[in-house]
Every structure is written in C-alpha cells, then in structure tokens.
C-alpha cells in the first residue's frame, strides 16, 4: 500500500530546517517520521504526515517548494536479518531503491522502513508476492 511523502527543498544554511518545522508546528501538524538528505549546497527534507494535503498547503503558503512522492512503508521483523530479508526480495525482483529511512517508533511490535523505489507499483507487487506486509495510512497513523 503506497503512502504519500512530502519532500521540501531547503538551502543548506542555518535555520532553514527550523523554519519549515515551525510552519508545521504553528498549523498543529504532527510529523510521523522524517529524514533529511543533504549536500554542501542544499538539503531535501522528507516527511511522512497524516494530513499531508494540509501540510503541503501550509508549507507552500509559507513559500516552500514541496513535492508529493509515493513511497512504501514496509514492515520489518525487529531482529537480526530482518532488513536483509527485504533487501533480498528487492534484489531478486531487480528493484531500484532511490533511498530509504526508518520510522522512529515501532508499529505493532515491528520496525517499519520507508522505501522510495524507482517504480513504487512494481515494488509493491513484488513485495506483496513475497508475503511482505506494507503499512497503509490506517496502520501508520492509528498508533499516535
């Protein structure tokens, strides 16, 4: 099940991350998880948020460039080899991972990872065929 991720362009200079987070805080929007990719020049803030449409509007109104991407939230057994098992499936299916990051908290006793595949649909099918559970909006946001 695909979920929506917001990506925000940040210049790599002091205070930029805080500005984006404050905009969301003011609108009382809670982040489920995030990751930050950065280079010397710029950063990309990736966010998973329950009400992503509202978050997008709020960020754009504040002048941010925002992009919505479909990603997969994959359930991983919280034990040695848990991630390796997923990656094996990914390899065999010839899928290309653009990037990945973890949810900060467990979901129903299991770890969860966000995967951005080149092609989310193909990846979803391959993982499903191998009995891998993917979290949808309902499971992801119920805990909180």
């Amino acid at each position: 099940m695909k979920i929506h991720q917001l990506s925000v362009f940040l210049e790599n200079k002091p205070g930029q991350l805080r500005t984006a987070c404050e905009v969301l805080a003011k609108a009382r929007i809670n982040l489920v998880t995030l990751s930050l990719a950065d280079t010397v020049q710029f950063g990309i803030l990736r966010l998973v948020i329950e009400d992503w449409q509202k978050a997008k509007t709020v960020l754009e109104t504040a002048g941010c460039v925002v992009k919505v991407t479909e990603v997969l939230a994959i359930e991983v057994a919280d034990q040695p080899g848990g991630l390796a098992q997923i990656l094996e499936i990914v390899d065999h299916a010839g899928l290309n991972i653009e990037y990945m990051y973890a949810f900060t908290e467990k979901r129903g006793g299991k770890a969860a990872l966000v995967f951005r595949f080149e092609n989310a649909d193909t990846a979803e099918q391959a993982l499903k065929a191998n009995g891998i559970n993917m979290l949808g909006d309902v499971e992801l946001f119920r805990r909180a």
Partner: protein
Amino acid sequence: MNMTEHHPISAPDFMPVNELRATQLSRLQRTVQQAYDHVPLFHRRLDERGLKPADVRSLEDVRRLPFTVKADLRDTYPYGLFAAPMKEIVRLHASSGTTGKPIVVAYTQDDIRVWTETIMRSLVSCGLHAGDIVQNAYGYGLFTGGLGAHYGAEALGATVIPISGGNTERQLMVMKDFGVTAICCTPSYFLHLIDQSQQMGVDLKKLPLRAGVFGAEPWTENMRERIEAQSNIKAYDIYGLTEIIGPGVGIECAHQAGLHIFEDHFLAEIIDPETLEPLPIGSEGELVLTTLSKQAMPMIRYRTRDITAFYTEPCACGRSIRRIRRIGRRSDDMLIIRGINVFPSQIEAGLLRIEGTLPHYQIVLTREKDLDQMEVQVEVTPEVFSDEVRGLEELRKKIVRSIETITGIRVALRLVEPHTIQRSEGKAKRVIDKRNM
C-alpha cells in the same frame, strides 16, 4: 468605436515613406541649427569638424555629425545641454546614475506634447483605446516611466490608475477590484505580480486584464511566453530612454515582431560600436538616436548602447515606420569574466532552455585569488524540484551545461529557495558585483 481603425493620432505611423524621409530631413536640419545655436558643447564640436548646420543637406549627412554619449550629460550636469531658456522649460526628469550624479533632462510644453503623442501612438499600437482601465505601475517621480505613460494614457481617453510602483498586494487588489484591462510596468515586476497573485489565490487569467506594456529593461522572448501563458494577456515591449524622451521611442504592434520606431520624431542609425561606422540595414549593432522634435534638449546621435538591428521587411501591420529587433542586450551591461564577454541575457537564455526554470535568478561576481568567480543563483520551482539528491544535482549540471553552451564559461550554480532573490519593484537587479576593482 471601430476597433480595426486606428486612433487618428497614429496617422504618422502609416505615412508614405518619401513623405516620412522628407519630414525627417527638415526636422533634422532644424534640430541641428537649434543645437548649434544654443548648446556650446555641440557648437564647439561642429566647429572642430569644420561643419556648419547648413552642411546637413540629406539624411545621410547625419553621419558627419559628432556623437553624444552619456558622459556628456554628466559632464554638463545639470543644465549644460539645454537648448531652451528656463522660462520655456516646464519639466525636468532625471535618471538615477549608478555612480555619482544623475543625468538631468528637460522638456518644453511642446516636448511634453510630442512625448504624450508618442505614448498615445504606443498604446494604440498595443490595441488600447478610450475606455481601457490602465494600471500605471511605473514609478512616478524623476523616473520618466510613470508620468510619461500617465500623460499618454490619459490623452488617449483611457482611465488611468496612477498607482506607481511597489506594494504588490495593493496592486493585485486594485487590478482585480477596479477591472483593470491594461498594465504598464517593468516585465520583471509583472513576473513578480504573477508570483504574488498565485500566493494570494488571484487567478490573473480570470481578470479582464488583456495587455501589458512592458519596458525600462531588456527582456527575452521566453519571458514573454511565460508572462502570456501565465496571465493570458498580450505582453508588448515598449522602448525608450531618458536621454531621448523617456518611454515611447519605439513600440511593438499586434504582430509582436520588432519595435516600430517613431521615426518622424527620432532618427535611428545602427553603428558598429567598435569602429563607429554605420552598418548596412539588417546588421546588428548599436542603436544611435537623434531627436527630431525636441526643443528643450535636442540629442544629436546619442549612443544608446543598446544592441539591435533594423528589420528589412515591412511589417504586416502596415506601419511605414521601421522596426528594430527587441533589445536583448546593451553594449555596456557586458560582464567580462576572466576575459570572456558575458551578457546577463545570455545567462537568462541558458536558464530558460531548461523546462520549468523561472527566470528568477541573480548573478554574483566575486574575485578569489585574482580570478573572477561567477555564481548564478536560481530559485527552485515546484516543476523542477526532485525528492532525490541525484535529481537536483542533475538539474544543476543541466543548467550549468546550458549556460556553458551559450556563454562558453562554466559558472558556479547555486539552487536557492523560492523568494530568496530580491524582487524588483522597478528594474531587476540581475548582477551583484562584489569584485573590488
């Protein structure tokens, strides 16, 4: 009112060519005589060449006359080039000099009449008429844009909103609430208005606004395409300069293929900026203008520094007054980066070749270890933004390559957040030169 017929004020635009040339010659002779009689600098320069005003017998004889350059206006600051007594001068304007003193220009009552006429003819050429509601967002004051456009639009019978520049939110409110049908401002400011309108949730395409008369800075064809696509108006280029009269020296027509010069009031030549020799019709060079009607401050062979060329074909609109190509660059906004000549318009052209890149950019020049460094800052737009680092790096490389193809130099390119580059309320400040020279 029959919209296919032009306002009678535009009749000179369609004058038979032989009549036009005859008018130009008699006015040139009168102007030269007047400058010789009243402007000491011009008198001395003619004497030095052993010339008398009577030596101007044909239009080609203009080539024997000395050039006037911007430095002449500075050197004779403030009133040294005036050819009329102060009691006949009813208006002064000035252009802000980037260094030191401004240059001052003067108008008699008749000069104001001529200026008003050329603006009226310009607006008619852009399809405007009595009944239009014109938002004049050129700055009012010493700058010629505001009052120039104001007088012309009012004389045409349009409803003028003298809002002047700045206060973008109010501009958009007025545009929407007052049912504005045409706007006058700089093209970069209009782009800024488009930006702001999107943020304010105003859809320009749904407003009655149908024409923009944009000038006071060079802009590109791509910029026009963007403006027209995003606002659903026709964007017309108006040309002019303070030294000659202000806006209203030249204007596009409905065909948007070059700018018609109001040749009955301004004599245009194209010269080679290096050799100063006249160039054959159609060749690209520097535009040189001589005023044919100005009384207070006649300008003889003023070097505009604007690079253009005459069209050789007559225009489909039927105007007999000739057209020049849009001014893409000036011979003096040229940047010399490590010995290579670069024009800001080339950077813009490089950016616009990349899909989705809006022309909000700035060039920052620095000098490190005696080497010129050129950084181009470009605002990231939703169209080009990628959630992958690789995607943005590729965008950066693509832009660098595109600029390199046009200019031959590799620039340092920095992607910046939207709205971090200062928007111009007037002319866009494209170049920040931090080199200490």
